[in-house]
């Protein structure tokens, strides 16, 4: 299974987590995800995810004027976004536990 498939499942969670630490604009979020280790993440996917989460009410946005470049649109979590993040984190952890147990058995057989 390619990393990209795994990524699609957790991208919402990853984006929400990054924004929970600090507000960010599009490319900023991409950078932070890559720095966290998700090197395969596509810029377009992150932009689309941001718009989708914003559309769903999980994010709020505001524009920060900039002197040198274009004004930047920053995203931040709303209360609903925070709830969503908590929900998804729990789901992810539960899911990861299951997968851990499954793979744990496999690993022992191989050894």
């Amino acid at each position: 299974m390619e990393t990209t498939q795994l990524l699609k499942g957790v991208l919402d969670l990853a984006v929400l987590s990054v924004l929970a630490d600090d507000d960010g604009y599009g490319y900023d979020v991409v950078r932070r995800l890559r720095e966290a280790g998700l090197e395969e993440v596509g810029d377009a996917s992150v932009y689309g995810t941001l718009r989708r989460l914003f559309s769903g009410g999980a994010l709020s946005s505001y524009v920060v004027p900039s002197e040198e470049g274009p004004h930047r649109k920053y995203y931040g979590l709303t209360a609903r976004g925070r709830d969503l993040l908590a929900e998804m984190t729990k789901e992810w952890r539960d899911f990861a536990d299951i997968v851990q147990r499954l793979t744990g058995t496999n690993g022992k057989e191989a050894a």
Partner: protein
Amino acid sequence: MSTTDAYVAAVRSLIQHLPTIEREEILEDLTAQLNEEAAEPGIALEQRLGTPSAFAAEFVESLGEVARREMSAPATAPPVGLRRWWSDVAPAWWMLRPFVIVGTIVLLVAHHRADKLTRVALLALGAAVAAAAVSWSRREGSAGGRWNLALSAVGVVSAVALGLALVSGSATRTMVVRPAPAAAIEMKCAMVAKERVMGPPDSPKFGPGKPFDAPDVPPICRRVLPLETTTTSTAPPPSTTSTTSAPPPTTTP
């Protein structure tokens, strides 16, 4: 035309079908990113971002159902009718709610028989709860949730209880459901007694020596005042302590 502009133009042509706001947002972000990356040398544009068609496809896919929206309307359409009215009223209710709840608690406390210190402590607690509820309401606002609903339920019950207390309070004022306190009886009956003593002479009803045991004397005074009648009376002598064992204030404010 620079490679940045060419790339952006290529992506634009591929996302014409998207809602206007989504299309303009991504093109703006893409332009900003490319300009930012232009400072970083090295890797070709398409190697970093993929081909314009790959980029456009990936973007549309990650948009999900947002891509299929007809209009570039906000996710939550502006409320109409009843919802609109509620969205205007709701903030006022959230601010009022804690006070309604605390107001009811205050009334309950004021009529409680506990000592003054306990009552003051309860009031302070109530004020703290109100402050917390107000600040919480302000923060959460329309974020629904069970707690908000529960608080609203308590608020409604309190408002109803408060309303009932006000209504029944005025009702009991007209009925003698509970005996009036001793002091009030004394005062009222003292007025009657004064009338009897100081009344105009030659009046059939008033004047010294006229009976208190008359139909126009309030029943409760007949028990308190001395009965100056020629008939023997079994009424108890007037006393400063109440003949009734009435608890403090009858009516709620």
